[in-house]
């Protein structure tokens, strides 16, 4: 037992990384003789020349990305400081493609997600010998891994089996050059520490809140990118985020949490202090109400999803299924692969992905970027027009009928690019007011002879299985759900509901939408890491939605009262 544990210590040996750091450099950084991009360019050319000519199998493409990340932040609980952070690091990602664009080391085999890059840390100063060494060693390591996989692929019989999609492994794109200034981080540590303390103290009014925290962070991300086609880019953006979470335990042991997040490009875009304090009160009150709310029974019937809830719904059950690489992976469910130019949504709905949009209705969108992680310029992609599927989200991995990227190749450092979502916008031509939508829900409840319908106010997120082996299903985890009674009784908050269902069936059942779009900002996690995204949607009325009971913990609530109650005695 002990021996086994020890072995796993060795295998999982990773230096612990407290992301709680400071870079308060009082360094005099002498101006570098060469810019970072120039060093990258030179080393790329030097390495590629050899790997292309003198190695077997030869490389035909290479790219370097250095992601320069800087962040500051503070977190607080019960009016006290938990942590303040100040980080800066640079991470290197190397891509080497071996073989030919027709068949290379990235070739998709069922269920495999090859990874060659490793996010190695490089100097935060433009120290030429150190950077060159790192680029050289990482290129060598990446090339070897790539060459090894290509040889493996070529001897793999499954390549010879006629694949349904025999498009190339890599697209041809024109070279781009740009250097976009990224605003410097603005952070008033004392001010935001004060705000965080004040906000977190706000939870103390709610005895049902067992644990709570407030985090405020800003981040600046600059990406340096060069490839052997001549692309040379410097671009990036800043982020600001407030996250508040309150957690509690119902008397039956069910863990409950309420949370709220605010995203913008910088702290100036964050809501005013009173709005933030209101959000704390809202989360606190909601949690207390949830703790007392009855547990749902499994239910199938009509429901309204609020705009934010609907955004998550679309992101999970629709967005992940129209990512290009899934259409090519034979282990994927490929729900929509053959549905091109066919109706997949009701005719009054259109879906657009637009990473060029920074704001909508005064709200910053989290999913924008200028260039994707393969150096392809971001663009607006109308995916579904009047219910008809027009294209997929595409990286430089072509899909049958789509030889070119549409600027949706994304990833976080250390992982390989796949096609990912950006800002998802649901647009509707069948809109009614919120009041009317509610009336339509009640009418539908009566028509179906049900006692009540459901209203999903807030949803944390969810997950979806797109793999062929998995059930083609999704699950979204609602935070705040109400029963809306047909007989005019007041709405009733319930707890412990999970929405479950299968994607195609759910889409057909959208009856109408509201006339007011809402924004859900967040971070989407998938095989290429966490990427910032947004989903914008009006509220939707669905004729049938299925909910099930959440898996719940059997732990009882704390046995002793809170220390604050003790000391009040």
């Amino acid at each position: 037992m002990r021996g086994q544990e020890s072995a796993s210590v060795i295998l999982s040996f990773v230096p612990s990384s407290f992301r709680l750091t400071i870079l308060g450099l009082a360094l005099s950084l002498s101006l570098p003789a060469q810019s970072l991009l120039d060093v990258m360019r030179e080393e790329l050319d030097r390495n590629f020349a050899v790997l292309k000519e003198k190695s077997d199998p030869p490389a035909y493409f290479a790219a370097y990305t250095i992601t320069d990340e800087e962040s500051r932040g503070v977190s607080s609980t019960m009016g006290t400081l938990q942590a303040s952070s100040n980080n800066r690091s640079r991470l290197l990602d190397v891509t080497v493609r071996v073989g030919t664009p027709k068949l290379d080391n990235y070739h998709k085999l069922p269920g495999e997600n090859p990874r060659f890059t490793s996010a190695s840390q490089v100097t935060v100063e433009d120290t030429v010998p150190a950077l060159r060494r790192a680029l050289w060693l990482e290129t060598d390591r990446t090339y070897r891994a790539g060459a090894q996989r290509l040889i493996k692929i070529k001897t793999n019989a499954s390549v010879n089996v006629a694949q349904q999609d025999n498009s190339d492994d890599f697209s041809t794109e024109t070279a781009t050059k740009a250097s976009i200034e990224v605003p410097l981080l603005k952070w008033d540590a004392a001010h935001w520490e004060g705000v965080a303390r004040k906000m977190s103290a706000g939870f103390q009014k709610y005895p049902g809140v067992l644990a709570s925290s407030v985090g405020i962070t800003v981040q600046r991300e600059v990406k340096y990118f060069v490839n052997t086609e001549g692309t040379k880019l410097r671009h990036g953006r800043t982020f600001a985020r407030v996250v508040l979470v309150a957690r509690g335990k119902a008397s039956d042991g069910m863990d409950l949490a309420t949370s709220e997040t605010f995203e913008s490009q910088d702290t100036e875009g964050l809501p005013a202090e009173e709005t933030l304090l209101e959000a704390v009160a809202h989360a606190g009150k909601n949690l207390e109400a949830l703790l007392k709310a009855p547990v749902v029974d499994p239910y199938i019937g009509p429901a309204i999803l609020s705009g934010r809830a609907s955004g998550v719904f679309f992101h999970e059950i629709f967005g992940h299924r129209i990512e290009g690489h899934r259409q090519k992976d034979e282990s994927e469910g490929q729900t929509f692969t053959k549905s091109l130019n066919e109706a997949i949504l009701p005719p009054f709905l259109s879906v657009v992905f637009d990473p060029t949009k920074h704001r909508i209705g005064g709200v910053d969108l989290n999913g924008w970027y200028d260039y994707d992680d393969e150096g392809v310029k971001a663009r607006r992609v109308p995916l579904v027009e009047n219910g008809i599927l027009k294209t997929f989200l595409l990286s430089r991995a072509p899909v049958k009928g789509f030889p070119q990227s549409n600027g949706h190749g994304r990833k976080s450092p250390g992982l390989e690019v796949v096609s990912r979502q950006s800002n998802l916008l649901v647009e509707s031509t069948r809109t009614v007011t919120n009041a009317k939508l509610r009336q339509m829900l009640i009418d539908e409840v009566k028509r179906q002879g049900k006692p009540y319908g459901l209203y999903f106010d807030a949803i944390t997120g969810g997950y979806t299985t797109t793999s062929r082996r998995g059930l083609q299903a999704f699950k979204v985890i609602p935070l705040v759900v109400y029963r809306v009674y047909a007989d005019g009784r007041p709405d009733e908050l319930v707890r412990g509901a999970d929405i479950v269902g299968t994607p195609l069936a759910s889409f057909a059942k959208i009856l109408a939408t509201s006339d007011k779009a809402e924004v859900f900002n967040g971070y989407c996690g998938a095989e290429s890491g966490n990427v910032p995204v947004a989903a914008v949607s009006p509220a939707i009325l669905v004729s049938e939605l299925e909910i099930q009971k959440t898996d719940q913990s059997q732990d009882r609530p704390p046995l002793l009262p809170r220390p604050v109650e003790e000391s009040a005695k």
Partner: protein
Amino acid sequence: MKRTLACLLLVAAVAAAQKDEKKPPEDVILQAMQDEIARSRSIKIPNLTDAPYYIEYGLDDFEGLTLSATLGGLMQVQRTHVRIPRVEVRVGDYKFDNTNYLFSDMFRHSGMEGDRMPLDDDPLAIRTHFWLATDGAFKGAVDSISRKRSALKNVAAPETLNDFARAQPVKILLPVKRIPADEAAWTKKAKTLSAAFLDYPAVLNSGVEFQWSQVASYYANSEGTSLRYPDNLVDVRIRATGQAPDGTPIHDHAEFFGHVFLDLASEDRMMKSAQQVGANVTALAAAPVAETYAGPVLFEAQAAAQLLAQMLRGLAPVRKPVNEPGRNIPIPASEFEGREGSRILPEFLDVVDDPTQTEWRGQSLFGNYLVDMEGVKPTPLPLVEKGVLKNFLMTRQPVRGHEGSNGRARLPGNFGAGTAAFGNLFVKAAETSTAPELKKKLLDTISKRGKPYGMLVRKLDFPSSANVEEVRKLYGGEQGPSGRVVSAPLLVYRVYPDGREELVRGLRFRGLTARSLRDITAASDEAFVFDYLENGAPLALSGGGGYVANTTVVAPSLLFDDLELERVDAEWARPPVVPAPPLVSVR
């Protein structure tokens, strides 16, 4: 019966003592911990009788600065301030509790304690954190003891040892003032040191890491122990890797430690060390691959201390936990178990662990500590006298033949117990030889046995700085009859009859066990001080454990009459396809 009554009386006394205190607290954090411990004694699950008989809180207020540099460039600076809490709840009694059971650590109920401990000295916020953690730990302990009871019902001859030894309460309240770290100065030093490798083109990868941490350590338990003391560490690590023409990876590192900056070696000495590391990697990359060898081996300089540091880890006994019937778990016993009173070293060697020493012959000792993780003060402990095993390193976990801690709980352990380790380990020789005499003895032995050369080891890869792949290939295979993993020699030389030394590479020990220590035939008159961080991981692999224990081994050079070194046959990737970029500095 008597024992239980005594226990209850003690509880009452502690509770009474705490009620009397109405003065302002000496320390806000300690007071908050004590208050919450006192309140938690009444924790109870309705309709169950299990109650906590022992509660322990620890809190490390950790402030750290870590910075790293490579080839003259700054890689990263990290400043960390975090409070790391520790909660232990034992239910049952000293005789039988929830620990020492195979799944003791598995039923920690995840309460709501996942959040970070507040950094402000706010008693209510600190208590709230401990309240939730205690709730989870208590529920886990109740779960664990009930499962342990049912597991024991099926065991024919259960262990009769007590589960937890009593210990005297200790009170220590030391100032925990902090020295501000001069980040700019240390950044400059790290960059300057790392630039040393610009002169060694054979070095592929190199780096210098500074780690500076100041910890205010707080501890309180329900027996009345309360502690506040500083636990500081400075660590400078210089490392380099290379690759031999046959692909074998090469690495070397040097490390300097101190409790505060002043203990550290001079910058000049560190620079020389960095250059030595660069020179070692360069020389090793060009060195011939050795052949498997059996014969006398001389461990010179720090190599003997590095070897003993590993071999004598076994002086911490291992207790087998209560098992589920029918489940076979291979928990290897200590190599020294049952050998108390027997000879484990040659008669001319004594071993003493003395963590109370701060200095030895003008050199500061790194392995000094005041109190262990269980709040027990260490005293000097003779471990081996005239080659005979006298004592074991003990925590509060009773083992066969021994109950009662001697203050050696230095790392977290398994099944609810701590892991014992030494502090300042002194290996003393009663009969000694000078360095030239030792070498002559080595040469005499080989000529007697008609061997073309003998082996001399000057440095072991301990604590190992090997990467994961190297560890797998070097140590993954069968390592002698006991399966013991011993660090490979890093600097190993063939010594020819004329005294000439030749550096070789690619060897590891074969069949080196505790029994081999009896083959030591001579020791030097000079002793060497070797400082390191013990982390409980195999080879004390750098980064291999979350906790570290500052340790020193002082030992003479040692001559082994007969040891085996075998050639490592592993396949490695070829050197890079593209030639290295130039190492021209910008400056």
